[in-house]
């Protein structure tokens, strides 16, 4: 995984709540068997509207998405995270994320930052008034900074460490190989097996 320490970029204010993963990347894109090439599918239906915020020329190259509550609900598709990253987003800010989407984002180095809705509103106002305004998402200081705004955020220490170091989760787990084998040895015999009967 790519490490994340701090990132500064322009923002896209997305004034929508309940942005489900079907909106982020529609199902027909899920037929691809790679982790890349999803950028054109990002918010595909909404992007048909020339006025959609992502289509505005002043938002080109923006890399921080500031969205309404309950971002990433619905399907577990990790393709939603890949689509955001393929498009160029490094961080998403919202007052609440769906659990599976959040887990997926942190496994891929897309930083999802939870801030109070009031702070999200201030970021919306700032970046709507000044599309060139830069937003810094700083994982080292656990802070989001923009003109007139400094907001701390929580992230559990273990997830933060893995992001800062860009660590491979599977590699970390395999350090416990002996513990896994010991657990397997004491599992009850009645547990199900998929071996053909």
């Amino acid at each position, binding site marked *: 995984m790519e490490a994340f320490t701090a990132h500064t970029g322009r923002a896209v204010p997305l004034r929508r709540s*309940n942005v489900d993963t079907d909106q982020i990347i529609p199902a027909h894109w899920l037929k691809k*068997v*790679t982790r890349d090439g999803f950028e054109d599918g990002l918010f595909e239906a909404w992007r048909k509207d020339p006025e959609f915020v992502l289509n505005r020329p002043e938002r080109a190259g923006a890399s921080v998405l500031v969205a*309404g509550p309950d971002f990433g609900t619905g399907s577990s598709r*990790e393709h939603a995270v890949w689509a955001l990253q393929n498009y160029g987003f490094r961080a998403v800010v919202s007052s609440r994320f769906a659990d599976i989407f959040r887990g997926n984002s942190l496994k891929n180095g897309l930083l999802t930052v939870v801030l109070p809705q009031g702070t999200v509103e201030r970021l919306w106002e700032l970046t709507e008034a000044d599309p060139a305004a830069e937003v810094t998402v700083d994982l080292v200081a656990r802070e989001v900074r923009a003109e007139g705004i400094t907001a701390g955020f929580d992230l559990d220490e273990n997830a933060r460490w893995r992001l800062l170091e860009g660590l491979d989760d*599977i590699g970390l787990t395999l350090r416990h190989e002996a513990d*896994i084998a010991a657990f397997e040895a004491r599992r009850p015999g009645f547990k199900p*097996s*998929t071996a053909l009967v």
Partner: protein
Amino acid sequence: MGRTLAEKVWDDHVVTRAEGEPDLLFIDLHLLHEVTSPQAFDGLRKAGRTVRRRDLTIATEDHNTPTLDIDKPIADPVSRTQLETLRRNCAEFGVRLHPLGDVEQGVVHVVGPQLGLTQPGTTVVCGDSHTSTHGAFGALAFGIGTSQVEHVLATQTLPLAPFRTMAVTVEGELPAGVTAKDLILAVIARIGTGGGQGHVIEYRGPAIEKLSMEARMTVCNMSIEAGARAGMIAPDETTFAYLKDRPHAPKGADWDAAVAYWRTLRTDDDAVFDREVVIDASELSPFVTWGTNPGQGAPLAAAVPDPASFADPSERFAAEKALEYMDLTPGQRLRDVRVDTVFVGSCTNGRIEDLRAAAAVLRGRSVAEGVRMLVVPGSVRVALQAVEEGLDKVFTAAGAEWRHAGCSMCLGMNPDQLAPGERSASTSNRNFEGRQGKGGRTHLVSPQVAAATAVLGHLASPADLTAEPALVA
């Protein structure tokens, strides 16, 4: 202090626990399908890793599979490639696969339980959010992303952050004609699409205990639509009776040992939930959605709400957007909403009981003129059972299309889709914009409401069929 059901199952699967680290949990059953696994197998290949426990892993094909002409090559080359990729990966890594055309093929969440693989007190994962379905057996079952699929393939474990617990207690008795689907839609409307975030929900109370396994699966299936990490129901005699003699259920002495363990899987009397919600079943009635998230629902007897009635500004804005997309007006009676498509199927309502319920309403009646009705069994086994009972004949005699098993129009990854502007009554789980096809509009309903809606051509419950004459095709 006592523990909840979810905490007991969690504790029984902890491989390592250390301060400042997530618990490492052992996974008893890993279900795979074609959409969320190819990149995970690629990851294994690149790192030179193998599947640690092939005997705890099983795959089927469901999301992409066509429901017509399944004996012909799949027309969409991209879908075909994805299915062929799964077949290659399963062959290379030694994973059991039930492909299209196999008697055990079907929607992954229908296949696991019917094989008897989903058992009380197990941990079950799948790269699919509706894995919560399996919680109906008292399993801790949750959807995961592709990185986690790769993690489980390689290690049979997952590092997991702790969860909070929520009790949804359903008191009283469901009135006649009110189903598990109506119940769960009402729960989601009550707590919201983010209401369960970070929580494992345990459904309990007299109305839950009376539900069949199929109905319990419908309830747990949609836990994710309330934002919950999982939904669970304590195993009981209903659960044991369902499992007994299934192909992968324990046999002989193992069965006795398993049942003895399963009986311990109940929330202790002195356990404390982080949050409790109480629902009075007797107040429920057939429930439908009017908006573009599953929390935007109302009783069928109600009207489309006025966005101005929502106090929360973001809910109000969401309602405005939803009504615009759904082409509905505030105050319009939900019963007056006309549909052109009815879909019965999915991991929510594609099991045999669901098909029986829809068929019972359709028997001797016809699908209204101008309405297309698709009936898609959740698995080949469900289809065979339905045929044995003559349900397929009931559907086709009424003018509905009887299709092959798969996810089908629930998410429209295969050719079964709504055209732009089309409106469906659907027994599936998501009414998101474009979910069933670009520009399509979805109302989530129970199988009974779906069938009555097909007959009358507008949202309706079976009770409406006797009240007004049918439009005969």
